[in-house]
C-alpha cells in the first residue's frame, strides 16, 4: 500500500471512521452540483425528510443543458427549463450558492470551481460528474460520484469510499512545439488503457508536469477517468499558489492564504513516499496525439499509422474493429487528412483562457474551411469575458467561428449543439464514444485545441506543426 503520498495524507485528514462495510467514511470539503445529476438526489432527501447538512460547503452551477446561443428564459426546450427550475428551487430551499447565468460566474462546473478559488489543495471535492478529477490539478482529492452518493453527501457531508492504490506517472523532459497537456494525457491513456487505472489514483509528477500551468494540469487530471482512474492529482507548488492568490476567495480573505499554506505544504507527497506502481513517460518523444476510434484510449501520434486490430491485445481487437468501421478509417494510414465537418473548441478539458489563446494564434489571419462548421464554447462566463476583452472573440469570428456562451454544449450534445448524421468532428473534449456528441452515427476525433483550430482551417485532421507560418509554440 502507498504511504506518505498526498492521497494518503488527505485521506487520513478526512477520514471520520471505518464503516461496518469496511469502507471509510470520508468528510467532503467541497460538494459541487449541477442540474443533471442532482435533482433526483434532492428528491430522495425530501422523501426521507432530510436536510442538506453542509450547505456552505456546497456550490451549484448549470452547464450540461444550458443553451449556448439564446439563453433567455424560459429556455426554448421544456426539459431544459424544467431541469433549470428544479435546480433553482433546490438551491434556494437549501441555501446553496449558485453560479447562475445572471451572476456572470456560470460555467462548466470544473471550470467554475477553480476560478472562484473553491478548489484548493488538500480538500476532498466531489460532484456527480466523472470529470471531477479535474480539480486534482490543485492537489485536491477529487472524484465523481453517482446520484445515491450525492444524496449521502447532501444528507451527511460525507461519503463511503474504499481506499485505492496510487500510481505515480512521471513525465520528464520537455514538450515539443505544438504538443500540449492534452497530448500527454491521451498518450498516458493510450499506453495504460482505458481500464489501466481502475483501482488506482494517479499522481502526475515529473519536470514536464511541473512546468505546466494550472490549465494544462487541469486538462491532464480531467481525463484521469478516461484512463479508468477515479482521481488524479498534481502536488501543489508555486504555480498552484500563484493561481490561488488571484482567485476571489483569497483576494477577499488574504489572511487565509498565509494561514492555509502550511497545510498545503504539509500534504505534498513526501520525497520518500511509497507508491503501488510507477510509470515513466518521456515528454521529448511525444507528438500531437489524435484518436482514431471510439474510446479515448484509441489514440496515436499524428504521424503514426492506425493500428491493425490484429496487432492489438486480444481483448481489444473486437472493439478496435468496430471502432474502425464506425470511424471509417483504415489501418496503416495516418489520421492526418481525415475529413472533418465540425470543429468544436470547448469542454472542461480545453476551454480555458490559455486554450483559447493558443487556438486563436493558429486561427489568426486564416479562414475556416468552407465545408466546416466551427464553434468556440468558452468554459465559463469569466473565460468568455476575458477572451472577449483581449480580442480573441474577434479573431475567431473573423475566421468564421461561431462564438457561443458558456456550457458543456457539443461535448455531450444535451443542448441544441449536436452533430448531425455521420458528421465528423475535431473536438477538444474528452470523450469520443459513439453517440457522445448527439448523433449516434457522428464521429469524434479528440485532439488538443491547437489541432482543432488547424483542422477547422484545413477541413481535415492536420498536424498543426506543418501549418505554414503558424505560431505553434506554447
Amino acid at each position, binding site marked *: 500500500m502507498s504511504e506518505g503520498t498526498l492521497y494518503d495524507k488527505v485521506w487520513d485528514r478526512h477520514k*471520520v471512521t471505518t*464503516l461496518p462495510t469496511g469502507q471509510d467514511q470520508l*468528510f467532503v470539503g467541497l460538494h459541487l452540483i449541477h442540474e443533471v445529476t442532482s435533482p433526483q438526489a434532492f428528491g430522495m432527501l425530501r422523501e*426521507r425528510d432530510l436536510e442538506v447538512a453542509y450547505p*456552505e460547503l456546497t456550490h451549484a452551477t448549470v452547464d450540461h443543458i444550458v443553451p449556448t446561443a439564446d439563453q433567455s428564459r424560459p429556455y426554448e426546450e421544456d426539459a431544459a427549463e424544467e431541469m433549470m427550475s428544479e435546480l433553482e428551487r433546490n438551491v434556494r430551499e437549501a441555501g446553496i450558492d449558485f453560479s447562475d447565468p445572471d451572476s456572470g460566474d456560470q460555467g462548466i462546473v470544473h471550470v467554475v470551481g477553480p476560478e472562484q478559488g473553491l478548489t484548493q489543495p488538500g480538500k476532498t471535492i466531489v460532484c456527480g460528474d466523472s470529470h471531477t478529477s479535474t480539480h486534482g490539478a490543485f492537489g485536491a482529492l477529487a472524484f465523481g*460520484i453517482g446520484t445515491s452518493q450525492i444524496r449521502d453527501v447532501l*444528507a451527511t457531508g460525507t461519503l463511503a469510499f474504499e481506499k485505492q492504490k496510487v500510481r505515480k506517472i512521471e513525465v520528464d523532459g520537455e514538450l515539443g512545439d505544438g504538443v500540449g497537456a492534452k497530448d500527454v494525457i491521451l498518450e498516458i491513456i493510450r499506453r495504460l488503457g482505458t481500464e489501466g487505472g481502475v483501482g488506482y489514483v494517479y499522481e502526475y509528477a515529473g519536470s514536464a508536469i511541473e512546468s505546466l500551468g494550472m490549465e494544462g494540469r487541469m486538462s491532464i487530471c480531467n481525463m484521469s477517468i478516461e484512463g479508468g482512474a477515479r482521481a488524479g492529482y498534481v502536488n501543489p507548488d508555486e504555480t498552484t499558489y500563484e493561481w490561488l492568490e488571484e482567485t476571489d476567495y483569497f483576494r477577499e480573505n488574504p489572511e487565509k492564504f498565509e494561514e492555509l499554506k502550511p497545510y498545503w505544504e504539509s500534504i505534498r507527497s513526501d520525497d520518500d513516499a511509497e507508491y503501488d506502481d510507477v510509470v515513466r513517460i518521456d515528454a521529448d518523444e511525444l507528438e500531437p496525439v489524435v484518436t482514431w476510434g471510439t*474510446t479515448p484510449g484509441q489514440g496515436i501520434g499524428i504521424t503514426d499509422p492506425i493500428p491493425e486490430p490484429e496487432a492489438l491485445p486480444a481483448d481489444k481487437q473486437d472493439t478496435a474493429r468496430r471502432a474502425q468501421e464506425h470511424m471509417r478509417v483504415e489501418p496503416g494510414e495516418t489520421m492526418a487528412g481525415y475529413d472533418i465537418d465540425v470543429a468544436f473548441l470547448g469542454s472542461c478539458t480545453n476551454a480555458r483562457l490559455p486554450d483559447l489563446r493558443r487556438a486563436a494564434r493558429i486561427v489568426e489571419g486564416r479562414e475556416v474551411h468552407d465545408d466546416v462548421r466551427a464553434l468556440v464554447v468558452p468554459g465559463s462566463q469569466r473565460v468568455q469575458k476575458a477572451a472577449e476583452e483581449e480580442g480573441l472573440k474577434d479573431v475567431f469570428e473573423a475566421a468564421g467561428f461561431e462564438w457561443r456562451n458558456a456550457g458543456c454544449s457539443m461535448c455531450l*450534445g444535451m443542448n441544441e449543439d449536436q452533430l448531425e448524421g455521420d458528421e465528423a468532428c475535431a473536438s477538444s473534449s474528452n470523450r469520443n464514444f459513439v*453517440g457522445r456528441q448527439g448523433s449516434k452515427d457522428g464521429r469524434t476525433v479528440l485532439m488538443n485545441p491547437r489541432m482543432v483550430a488547424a483542422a477547422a482551417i484545413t477541413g481535415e485532421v492536420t498536424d498543426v506543426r506543418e501549418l505554414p507560418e503558424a505560431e505553434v509554440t506554447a
Partner: protein
Amino acid sequence: MADADGVEIPEVDSVSGSGVPIRGNDIDTDQIIPARFMKVVTFDGLGEFAFFDLRFDEDDEQKDHPFNEERFQDSSVMVVNSNFGCGSSREHAPQALMRWGIDAIIGESFAEIFAGNCLALGIPTVTADAETIEELQDWVDENPDGDLEIDVEAETVTYGSETIDVTVDDAQRKALVEGVWDTTALMKSNAAAVRDTARELPYVEADAIPEAE
C-alpha cells in the same frame, strides 16, 4: 438493517432469475442510456430507454439486441463482458437497467463508478474470468428460461446443474449481505464524529459546521 428513518434496507444475500447476455467489451454508459434521455428530474420511466441506440435505428425500427428479444423480456440477470459501464458517472445507467428489470449483473469486469452506483441500488456486480463468462452467455442464449442463482455471500453462481465460483468485491459483499448498502442512515448516525473531523480541517470555516442537532 433497520434504517434510523424507519426505511428498511433489504439484505441482498442472493439474486435469482433468468439471464440475458449482453456481449462486447467497453460498453459505456452513453450506450446504456444516451445523454438525451437524461433530461429528466426523476429516474421513473428510464427503463424503456436502456440501450436505446443499440436497440433502435433512426426510424425507431428495432435492431438486433437481446433487450428486444421476446425470450429475454423476463430476464433479470445480465451477463456482460469486460469494462462494462465505463465512461460517465451517470446513475441513470444502472437506474435504467434496474427499471428495465435487471437485479444483478455478472461480468468480466466493471467500471468502478458504475459498480458503485449499482451497489447504491442494491444490484450486485459479480465477476468471473473471460472463459467462464463466455460459457455463461452461451448457456443463457440456449436456456433463456433457465434460472441463474447468484449467491452473494458464498460467491457462487448456479445454473443448470453447474455451480461456479465468482468474485464479489469484499466491501460490496458485506454491504449487500448485511443490508448496509444504503449508506445514508449509517453515516448520519456518525454526525458528531463528522463535525469533529470538520473542525480539525484548517480550511473549513467554523460557521460552515452545523450545530449539533
